[in-house]
């Protein structure tokens, strides 16, 4: 990975997160003639962020549908297509707008397989740009995964690397169950995380966490852009002799408890970090599960660091105030290790 100007043709090609997603979507559209994409502005425009750029030109406006601004209908129609044999990828222009299709998700799509005692499964992926730390304010910053984690029948995924974006998107599109796919918009084109993303067979199974950094003093479980905050914090802590193990969950449901447990058995301390509001958020869920399954291993109370129970405000200082920061993670890690 030399940095010289003469390109090495055999050098691995590094791609960004958005390209990872895009490749999975294009390759699955190619491989699966029964796949349909729906969303607002995904065709002519190619999506607000360009994730589906070129897709309609290639696969036509019947399979890549520019929908009216009707989130409930997008989901409902996807359910109908799935009922009639299609695999459907739905875009929410921002994941925040998913609230407008909420009923169709939790009461129609999520329950279909259950209600029909397995007659009808719902191979639907709902994807959309998510996450704060970007000045998007209340309606362009949400991480609202908790709503869906408390609604039985929905899998939830959140990759933070280009190869995971590709591999998990492919796995989601091949999964028979509905998957909510949280894309971190701040990572879409982030140069420093570019990497090889694998070919048309790259797949990362849902439910397998990734150890992003090894350590033995504290286990941090996190996902999305907080993975990078935690890694940065781990770097700082390492200079103090504290070695943190950072687990990138990648998939929240199904959840890789085995990896978490093995880590906590080693570190005896646990911290969950995420950017959703605290109450009834997934960080609390992780604390409850660790408490339940690792109690005897714990030398400190399992803790969580989350967004405060507030919306995401606009002004930068306010936004950062309510979100977990690298400093917050460092401080909390120190507290737990010293406990």
């Amino acid at each position, binding site marked *: 990975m030399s940095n010289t100007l003469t390109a090495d043709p055999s050098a691995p090609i590094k791609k960004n997160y958005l390209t990872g997603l895009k490749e999975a979507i294009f390759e699955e559209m190619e491989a699966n003639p029964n796949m349909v994409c729906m969303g607002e502005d995904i065709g002519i425009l190619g999506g607000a962020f360009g994730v589906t750029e070129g897709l309609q030109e290639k696969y036509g406006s019947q399979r890549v549908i520019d929908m009216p601004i009707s989130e409930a209908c997008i989901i409902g129609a996807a*359910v109908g297509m799935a*009922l009639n044999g299609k695999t459907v990828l739905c875009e929410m222009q921002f994941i925040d707008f998913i609230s407008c299709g909420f009923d169709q998700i939790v009461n129609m799509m999520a*329950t279909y397989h259950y209600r029909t005692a397995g007659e009808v499964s719902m191979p639907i992926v709902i994807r959309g740009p998510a996450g704060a730390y970007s000045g998007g304010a209340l309606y362009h910053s949400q991480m609202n995964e908790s709503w869906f984690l408390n609604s039985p029948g929905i899998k939830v995924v959140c990759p933070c690397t280009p190869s995971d974006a590709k591999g998990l998107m492919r796995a989601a599109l091949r999964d028979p169950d509905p998957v909510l796919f949280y894309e971190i918009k701040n990572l879409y084109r982030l140069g420093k995380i570019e990497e090889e993303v694998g070919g048309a067979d790259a797949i990362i199974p849902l439910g397998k966490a990734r150890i992003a950094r090894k350590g033995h003093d504290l286990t941090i479980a996190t996902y999305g852009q907080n993975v990078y905050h935690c890694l940065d914090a781990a770097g700082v802590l390492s200079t103090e002799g504290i070695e943190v193990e950072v687990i990138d969950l990648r998939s929240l449901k199904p959840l890789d408890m085995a990896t978490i447990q093995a880590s906590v058995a080693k570190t005896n301390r646990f911290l969950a970090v995420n950017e959703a509001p605290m109450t009834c958020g997934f960080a609390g869920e992780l604390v409850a599960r660790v408490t339940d399954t690792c109690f005897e291993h714990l030398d400190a109370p399992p803790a969580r660091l989350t967004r405060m129970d507030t919306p995401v405000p606009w002004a930068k200082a306010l936004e950062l105030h309510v979100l977990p920061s690298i400093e917050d993670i460092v401080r909390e890690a120190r507290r737990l290790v010293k406990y």
Partner: protein
Amino acid sequence: MASTVSSPKRGTDTGATQRPQDLLTKEDHLAVLQQLYLARYFDVRLIKEKRRGRLTGTLYSSHNQEAILVGSLYGLKSTDWISPIHRDMPAFFMKDMREGWDRPSRKGMSIEDLCGQVWCKATSPGRARDNWSHIGSREHHIIHSTSMLAGTIPVAAGVVYADRLNGGDAVVLTYNGEGSTAQGVFHEAINFAAVHKLPVVTIIENNFWAYGTPNHLEYSQEDFARRADGYGIPGTVADGQDVFDVYDKVMEAVEYARSGKGPSIVECKTYRAYGHGDHDDDRAARYRPTVDESVTYRQMLEMGRQRDPISVAKKRLVELGYLTAEDATRYAAEGKHATQTTDEDFPPEVVDYIKRGVDAATQAATPPAEEGAMWVFREGQP
């Protein structure tokens, strides 16, 4: 309540003087009457079973509204889809009945399966996991309903979108109470269907009440068919007590849809025979007058009884000479409260058919408790 047609786009389509019903044979006419008996007897039977404490859940009677179901289903192709809701229980086993009540190839649920559902047994197509009308069958092209009113309209649109992608020509009929047309998703789905000219026929069963709320508090116009105007699609009004008028209007809509012209709405004016659900009969009787202060709820029930769809159909069959006046009086189910009818008021083959379902259901097992935890996901739980 004259049936009116008002369609900005259909123009010449409706100009034809020959109505779909004019192509029905004598056998068809007799089959339609028989189906009205079937639907009525099914409901009557459920009401009686419920009163005997043999059923759980709320019963939303389809009594008096059967012409809508029978008339709309009669001309469908096997490949067409339907999406019935709470007041449409008979539709589940009556879809595609024209092909023969028991042909295995028939794309309708068997009476045994449907009764399995009503009796909350393991033989229910959904293994009694959701209640009452909340079933369906992909195999039989019946969309699985939920409680959320109007919630299956976008699903229906998706079903036929997929069918069209596959080169099919299926039409989907969705059934809806007039009250449910106020839901946002009704609008989103019809708009989508109109944009893509999807073959979605929206049937509005206007029985003048949504639970305890009368028409004028739900909508600002008299005819719910007028909701169609906002989408530039045809909206027609049928006499929901006249099975042949329903047949006409729905078949026009179905042909319009199948020929690629797009969605439409058919409003069928009808009457509830009882309260909203069986728990509500007593309160309903006390409902205050509707906007037309001269008509009380009780009087409305009475109007319904006088225009019983069975009487209306019989009258027509007699007129056409397909039924003698004497034959017309043989089975006197019409105009009666469910509890006043006896099995003798129905043709024996009708009674037998439903009995088959009831017997199968009462003998069927209940699903084992563990099933409650199953099928959340396709492959076990995380």
